[in-house]
């Protein structure tokens, strides 16, 4: 695989947005500490009727779908054989890695007895009937896979870097505490040699790991739908169907492609790079086909179960259903026109509509359509929300920093692109 397709983004790390995100992150993490000292009830509004709140619904069920950019791009590049999208894949994998890693972190905040989680590795405790068992193992495995997929970016950096920072530190240290400058130099050389040794070997097996990275999300994204299959008396019939696993799977695919578009547009805008219009309009062509399949399954299933009337009754549930449905339908409708697919603005709008609609679908299944019985109510507490906000802030923060220290973003190839980049940079 060509690593020459990527480059670091040369820019300052400590920007104003860095500070804002850092503050949000710190607030979130303080609240996490509070949760571990005083119990989950102290920071959240979850109850015995609504045992899963915003943490599971957003950070896990929705967050991993939004982190499916890496999955969707991998299918496109390696399975559908569109190698020219390869330059876009590394940033997609990076966001996926953050999304999944932090979903795992949220789970550890959310569960009551995290110290018992080692039971997932003890075969006698395995419980293959449980969709959650499947989700947990797959998510852990997939996070590892993503880290390995991202390893080449780190290795090339280790291999090629001049270690300016490290050199500076050594130079500063050497007369003071560590007089043995030679030994330290030697260690750095050793790391560099290790990276050089590992990289070609990793390249050889990487494709099998990448394919594993396609298989695992296929499994656990559908299982995220299966999780709610058992709640047949609590989940509203508009959403409770045997097709939940299939719907969740297709849902994560179109969210994945849409989020890849959004990410590219936003990061090009924020980092003042030229837009990747050609690639994006190619991606955008796939989305409406997926959403059309999804929407037909939804309607067909409702008709088959005789729930169409309920869907159009305009009560509380029906409104949320229609909202989700219309957002997705509108976004896909826009993308059917090839003229709009050429415009960054329309691409952005339609991808955003689809991501919001697709995320709302997951909220509907996990929270809004979930009714445990009379007398139970749920709306997230402020502290609970701030923990989620902190986690998201940390995610964006990490992305911002990493693209500036590792070769992640697509290389600007032609003279034209570079000029355009310089121009946009100047304008700003």
């Amino acid at each position, binding site marked *: 695989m060509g*690593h020459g397709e990527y480059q670091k983004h040369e820019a300052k790390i400590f920007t104003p947005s860095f500070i804002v995100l850092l503050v949000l992150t710190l607030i979130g993490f303080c609240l996490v500490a509070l949760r571990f000292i005083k119990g989950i009830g102290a920071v959240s509004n979850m109850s015995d*009727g609504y045992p899963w709140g915003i943490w599971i619904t957003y950070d896990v069920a929705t967050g991993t779908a939004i982190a499916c950019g890496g999955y969707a791009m991998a299918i496109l590049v390696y399975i559908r054989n569109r190698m020219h999208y390869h330059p876009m894949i590394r940033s997609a994998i990076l966001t996926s890695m953050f999304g999944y890693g932090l979903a795992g972190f949220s789970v550890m905040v*959310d569960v*009551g007895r995290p110290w018992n989680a080692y039971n997932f590795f003890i075969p006698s405790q395995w419980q293959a009937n449980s969709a959650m068992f499947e989700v947990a193992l797959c998510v852990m495995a997939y996070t590892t896979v993503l880290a390995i997929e991202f390893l080449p970016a780190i290795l090339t950096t280790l291999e090629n870097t001049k270690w300016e920072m490290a050199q500076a530190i050594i130079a500063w240290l050497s007369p003071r505490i560590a007089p043995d400058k030679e030994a330290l130099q030697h260690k750095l050389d050793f790391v560099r040699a290790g990276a050089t040794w590992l990289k070609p070997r990793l390249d050889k097996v990487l494709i099998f790991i990448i394919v594993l990275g396609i298989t695992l999300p296929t499994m656990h994204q559908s299982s995220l739908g299966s999780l709610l*299959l058992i*709640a047949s008396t609590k989940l509203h019939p508009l959403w409770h169907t*045997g097709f939940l696993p299939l719907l969740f799977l297709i849902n994560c695919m179109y969210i994945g492609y849409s989020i890849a578009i959004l990410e590219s547009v936003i990061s090009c805008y924020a980092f003042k790079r030229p837009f990747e219009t050609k690639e994006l309009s190619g991606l955008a062509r796939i989305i409406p086909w997926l959403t059309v399949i999804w929407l037909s399954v939804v309607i067909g299933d409702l008709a088959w179960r005789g729930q169409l009337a309920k869907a159009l009754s305009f009560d509380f549930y029906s409104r949320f259903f229609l909202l989700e449905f219309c957002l997705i339908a509108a976004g896909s409708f826009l993308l059917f026109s090839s003229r709009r697919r050429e415009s960054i603005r329309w691409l952005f709008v339609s991808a955003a509509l689809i991501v919001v609609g697709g995320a709302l679908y997951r909220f509907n299944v996990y929270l809004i359509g979930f009714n445990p*019985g009379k007398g139970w109510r749920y709306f997230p507490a402020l502290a609970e929300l701030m923990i989620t906000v902190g986690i998201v802030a940390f995610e964006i923060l990490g992305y911002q920093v990493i693209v500036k220290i590792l070769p992640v973003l697509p290389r600007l190839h032609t003279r034209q692109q570079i000029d355009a980049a*310089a121009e946009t940079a100047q304008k700003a």
Partner: protein
Amino acid sequence: MKKTNRRQFLKVAAAGAAILTTGKASASEAHRKVNNNTLSMLYDATKCVGCKACMAACKRVNGDYGSLAYEQASFDRDGLWDAPQDLSGSTRTLIKLFKESERDWSYVKYSCMHCQKPSCVSVCPVAAMTRDPETGIVDYNKNTCIGCRYCQVACAFNIPKFQWDRAIPQIVKCDLCKNTNLRQKGITACAEVCPAGAIMFGKRGDLLAEAQKRLAENPGKYLNHIYGEKEVGGANHLYLASMQFNKLGLPVLKDEAPAEFSEKIQHTIYKGFVAPVALYGTLCWIAVKNMRTHGPDEKDHHNDTDKQGGA
């Protein structure tokens, strides 16, 4: 590449085989008939006098083992009474009064239904919820529980409760006094102390027969329905009452266990782990083929490794 391919495949296949064996055991379990020799309780709401002796006994007997606590009412500053408002992280059983009018009212006792095909057991990812096929007791083990609360989402009766206010929380639910009164005296604490004979303890078959007898002997007194006989595939906690059960907070449920439905789908997808392995194999084949066709120009890229920076 071939070699790595095979090694990878063997690894996945081995994992598949491990899951296959566990999968088989659960598949045969799914076709289990209702076992009437398991331990049961029959609560007769028309006999209950609402004295709450069962609640007090349950907390006294299981307090330490089940980590139950007394719950203070807002008016009771001195903490004289135990006043739970609902089942909770400190309370395994509860008596409530439902009053429609001066003439129509009924007590009702809440506690775990000990389902024959329990949802909580089906969903628990680490097998912390278990059902003993001999006794029918659905038990909870806090030493394996990770506190994910999926059992709460899954239980149609909203029975498992979580200790929201504790730093080291656990799930709380009735275990038929398995490790306390039942072990010591052979009867559950609540059934033992009931002064009105409203709670009967025994084999499920015997209690069903008793319930049917009461229905036949007292026409008009009861609603002609034994709650728990058929609900969600049968439960081991049976109810007789004169008022509609859903008015008493016992939901109207289908005869099919929700766990049958969800497990059927889960097993169809993951039967013998064949589908995921096949998916992985096929995708590998396609991807490797794709890589081959792109071989030469990929090589070119290789020589030109990441240059730092760029524009």
